[in-house]
Each structure stands twice: as structure tokens, then as C-alpha cells.
């Protein structure tokens, strides 16, 4: 009984500690699970459903030399970090959205069809929830991994994923 009385008398302290703990370790893990642009490949997918962690793990299985991690994000992620997509290395977009994001795509390079709506078949379908339209994979215009070939290597892995 005294234990509960003690806890309630200092409830604010215990709640504050829990909040501080969540914020601090959240920040630490944000640092741990991130890397400088030169060491990571970022993939942005415009799909309603995505198994981002599983896809990133799959792509990391044969990541190019010099790459520490691969991050996969849904475009919803941009609500919190709207400028990040500019530096995305790979973008997967539905046909209807290509015009909207044209300035982010590497000019002079055709997008590769990653999902065919007519045949309902495509790459990485186990990880990406495609809708009833064709999807294309593009390289990002401001990707820092165009010259070292890392972005193309990961794009090839993506296209080979089941």
C-alpha cells in the first residue's frame, strides 16, 4: 500500500522520466540507423503499402561496396521530411505521378517499368503494395551514387527482388 502511495506522490517524476527516456533513445537510434548520404542509398516508393524494413534488409544482402545501409521510405515519410526526396537515389512512382516529380528524376534516362498493371506482375511485389496502374523506377537527379554505380546496382537488385 505504501509503495503505491509513494509512486503516486512522485507520479510526475516517473512520467517525466519515461518521456525523457523515449526521446533520448529515440534520438540515439535515429543516429544509429542513419548514415551520411555518401554511405547510404535511399529508395522512395510512392505506394499505399510498403514493407520497408523487409525490403531494406533484402537489398542490404548484396549492397554495393562502400555502402553502409539502404533506407526504404514511403512517400508518406516526406510529410515529416519534405526536402529529403530531392536527394533520393531511387524513386518508384506510379505513371500518374511522374509529371509531378519530374524535376527529381535523372534527366535523359528512361524509367524502368517495375510493375505492369495489365499483367499484375512486377518486381518487389512482395514488399510494395502496387495499385491498379503501371509503376516505374527512376534514378534521382541529385543522387550522389550515380558515378560510383551504387544507385544502379541497388536498382538492379530491386528489379530482381520477388
Amino acid at each position, binding site marked *: 500500500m505504501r509503495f503505491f502511495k509513494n509512486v503516486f506522490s512522485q507520479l510526475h517524476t516517473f512520467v517525466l522520466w519515461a518521456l525523457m527516456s523515449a526521446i533520448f533513445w529515440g534520438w540515439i537510434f535515429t543516429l544509429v540507423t542513419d548514415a551520411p548520404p555518401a554511405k547510404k542509398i535511399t529508395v522512395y516508393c510512392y505506394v499505399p503499402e510498403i514493407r520497408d524494413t523487409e525490403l*531494406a*534488409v533484402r537489398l542490404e544482402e548484396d549492397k554495393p561496396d562502400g555502402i553502409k545501409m539502404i533506407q526504404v521510405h514511403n512517400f508518406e515519410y516526406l510529410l515529416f521530411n519534405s526536402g529529403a526526396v530531392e536527394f533520393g537515389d531511387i524513386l518508384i512512382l506510379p505513371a500518374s505521378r511522374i509529371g509531378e516529380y519530374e524535376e527529381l528524376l535523372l534527366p535523359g534516362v528512361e524509367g524502368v517499368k517495375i510493375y505492369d498493371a495489365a499483367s499484375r506482375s512486377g518486381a518487389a511485389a512482395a514488399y510494395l503494395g502496387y495499385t491498379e496502374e503501371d509503376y516505374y523506377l527512376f534514378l534521382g537527379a541529385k543522387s550522389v551514387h550515380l558515378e560510383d554505380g551504387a544507385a544502379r546496382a541497388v536498382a538492379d537488385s530491386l528489379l530482381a527482388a520477388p
Partner: protein
Amino acid sequence: MTDAPVELYTDADVRGLRRKIKGWTLALGLFSLLALGVCIALAALTTTGNAQRMELAAIAVSTVSGWIVLYCAIFTVGNARRELGHAGTLREGERERVEGRVRVTRRWLRIKKSITALAVDVETPEGVRSFWVSRSRAKRLSEAGPTALYICHGYVAAYEVTK
């Protein structure tokens, strides 16, 4: 015939409180370091696939271990510190001898940043006078059946028993 006054806080009590504070502080420090080590290990073992689970585990370990440390620091170590401060005041302060029928009541008082005390009523020829005794010493005082109290700043510091 009365014995010499019996101190509520003897030298041994003060030494015991100091040992308790030291021991608990050391134990809590080691426990905190252990918890921090576990959290650092979780962060170090993080991969893309297990990042969310590791983060949740680190937050859980940090939160629960922090609650344990806070609880013990505030209530176990904190109470011992307050008791030690109270003992020092009673052992050094001026005293008044009050004789009469002593009764430890259930009325209690929690003094901010100090001890929790129970009221002690003394029936003197002039009427009933009330004082306070630390909750941790109330049982000892009650069982002794004192006939006189030594009061310091309104608190019972020592007592006498008539044989």
C-alpha cells in the same frame, strides 16, 4: 527509580543510517551503469532488420531501470538522508524534559523535505501536551512505555523509563 535517558538515535543508529545511504548509493550507481551498458549493447547490436525492436527494448530497459533507481533514490536513500539530518538536529539541540503519561497516537505529519512523524501526547499535571516522533522510532518509543520525554524542537529525542 528512573534509568538514564535512552536516546532515540544512538551512535550505532547514526552509523547504520550512514552505511545504508552509502550502500544503497553504490548499489544504485552500479545498477544504473549496468542498465546503461545493456542499452548501449542494444544500440551497438542494431541492424536495419531489428532496429525497431532494439529501440523499444532500449526504451523499456532505460525506463524501468530508471523508475527503480528513482524510487530507491527518493524513498530509500532519501528517507535515510532525511532521518540522518533529523537525528543530527535532535542529538545536538537543546532539550526540555517533560514528565507524564505518554501515548503514541496515529496522527501523522509529513514534513516537506523531512521525515514523517507521529504525534505523541503526554498527560502532564498541567494538561495534555503534544509532540512528534519520527515514524521509524514510534514503535520503539511505544513499546518502551516511557514516563518522561526529552523534547528538542518539538520532537522526541530521548525518553526515560521508571522501574
